[in-house]
């Protein structure tokens, strides 16, 4: 839609034109199945392997350490269920955090039925997991640790290197959900010390329908989808070739432009945060002030509720998101915000503006212009707000 100011890049990103162009031949010209022996099949196979090299290179992995999946959720499910199966002999305890994505938290609940106990580490007011807490939570039967890299809501980036070192020192397998971080901030899986890492195409200006799980060479993981020999038998099923080609291009471009994009986004983000703070009172920035994703502006406006803010922004052509209970289907406040110690009332007034490389400074300025009257209008209606 023309004229939309898209500040919801944490939900998904617009596909880069170069990515889209690279994908198009794989629908009607190079439509072969990579498993086929003939030329059409082999050129699809070559395309998938080319993408694997780009995707691996983005995170400092070897191509044979990359498994293509369909989405970030699948990568997280593959990792937790696949590792739990192969680690059964090692123990029956998993350590994770209270701010993980539901594609980690719900599998943990499921694994509980199969005898896997888990501990969810708390976070501090900025959403950071403390290495000390991790050390204390380790038990004799801890077999797996799963801590996300950057939080998808408040943008806080965890100190994975320190957490990874603790896992290694204790000989515990370490998974990280990197869906919000890969392609946006530098990721080197060897440096981070992760054994397994999930990431996705649609967060880095690639198409939906392709994602990946990095599995360190030598690490045993049970297959997720069982069938043919695709993805070395660990994720059977015909590859989504066009999406994987797009993912490869998105990863290649992301690696090339990462520094430039991050610097640009940080500039926009800081201008937006400063603008909001200067134009509106009783507003709180959520997440870590420094260690946060370059495009993340997560704020809580006191005395009002997020959905009504989003509706009024939408009327102005601005797309944003909220962690308020009225926006979620479950009618529950964001667990991330509650874990960080926000009061339920403050959490209700949360709005996430997630900026992307296609956003322009004028779009931020326009948002900063329309936001104060929206907040003012809703506060005037609120029984919690007393005008000073």
């Amino acid at each position: 839609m023309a004229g939309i100011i898209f500040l919801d890049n944490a939900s998904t990103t617009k596909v880069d034109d170069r990515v889209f162009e690279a994908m198009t031949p794989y629908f009607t010209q190079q439509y072969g199945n990579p498993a086929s022996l003939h030329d059409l099949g082999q050129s699809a196979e070559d395309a998938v392997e080319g993408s694997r090299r780009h995707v691996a290179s983005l995170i400092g992995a070897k191509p044979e350490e990359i498994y293509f999946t369909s989405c970030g959720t699948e990568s997280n499910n593959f990792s937790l269920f696949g590792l739990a199966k192969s680690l059964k002999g090692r123990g029956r305890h998993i350590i994770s955090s209270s701010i993980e994505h539901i594609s980690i938290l719900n599998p943990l609940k499921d694994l509980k039925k199969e005898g896997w106990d888990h501990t969810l580490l708390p976070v501090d007011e900025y959403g950071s997991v403390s290495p000390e807490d991790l050390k204390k939570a380790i038990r004799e039967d801890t077999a797996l640790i799963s801590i996300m890299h950057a939080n998808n809501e408040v943008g806080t980036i965890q100190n994975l290197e320190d957490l990874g070192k603790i896992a290694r020192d204790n000989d515990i397998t370490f998974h990280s959900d990197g869906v919000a971080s890969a392609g946006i901030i530098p990721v080197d899986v060897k440096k981070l010390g992760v054994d397994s890492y999930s990431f996705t195409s649609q967060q880095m200006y690639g198409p939906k329908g392709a994602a990946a799980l990095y599995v360190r060479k030598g690490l045993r993981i049970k297959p997720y989808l069982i069938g043919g020999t695709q993805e070395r038998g660990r994720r059977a099923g015909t590859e989504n070739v066009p999406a994987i080609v797009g993912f490869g291009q998105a990863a290649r471009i992301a690696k090339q432009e990462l520094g430039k994009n991050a610097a640009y986004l940080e500039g926009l983000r800081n201008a937006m945060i400063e603008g909001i703070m200067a134009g509106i009172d009783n507003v709180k920035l959520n997440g870590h002030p420094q260690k946060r994703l370059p495009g993340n502006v997560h704020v809580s406006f006191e005395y009002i509720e997020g959905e009504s803010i989003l509706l009024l922004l939408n009327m102005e052509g601005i797309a944003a998101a909220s962690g308020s209970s009225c926006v979620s289907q479950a009618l529950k406040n964001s667990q991330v915000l509650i874990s960080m110690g926000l009061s339920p009332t403050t959490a209700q007034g949360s709005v996430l503006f997630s900026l992307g490389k296609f956003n322009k400074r004028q779009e931020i300025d326009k948002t900063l212009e329309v936001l104060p009257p929206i907040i003012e209008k809703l506060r005037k209606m609120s029984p919690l707000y007393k005008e000073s």
Partner: protein
Amino acid sequence: MVTYSKKVMDHFMSPKNVGEIEDADGVGEVGNPTCGDMMTFYIKVKDDRLDDVKFKTFGCGAAIAVSSMVSELAMGKSLDEALKISNKDVAHELGGLPKQKMHCSNLGADALHKAIQDYKKKKME
């Protein structure tokens, strides 16, 4: 966005009767911010009729639209008639509400009824 009817959006964008009545004859408050919605209704009564109705609401688009609709439906009605305004009436007048937002319509009529009860209680004293 959630799909609200045009009527809901109209009331949300330009709500009627927002505010407080300082010397209100009755005040009714329902909900709390933790659950996402909170409404306060203020009424002024003259000859057993609602002479003025105002509200303040913390909540989603549906909650604000519901408050506005309830205030409009109640304005000028006798107390008995106003007590008969049901949650169903409110949702119906708004052209329907999304399923997960139906609880908002409950709050609106409840807050109005509470304000009327508050007035009756005060009168008894």
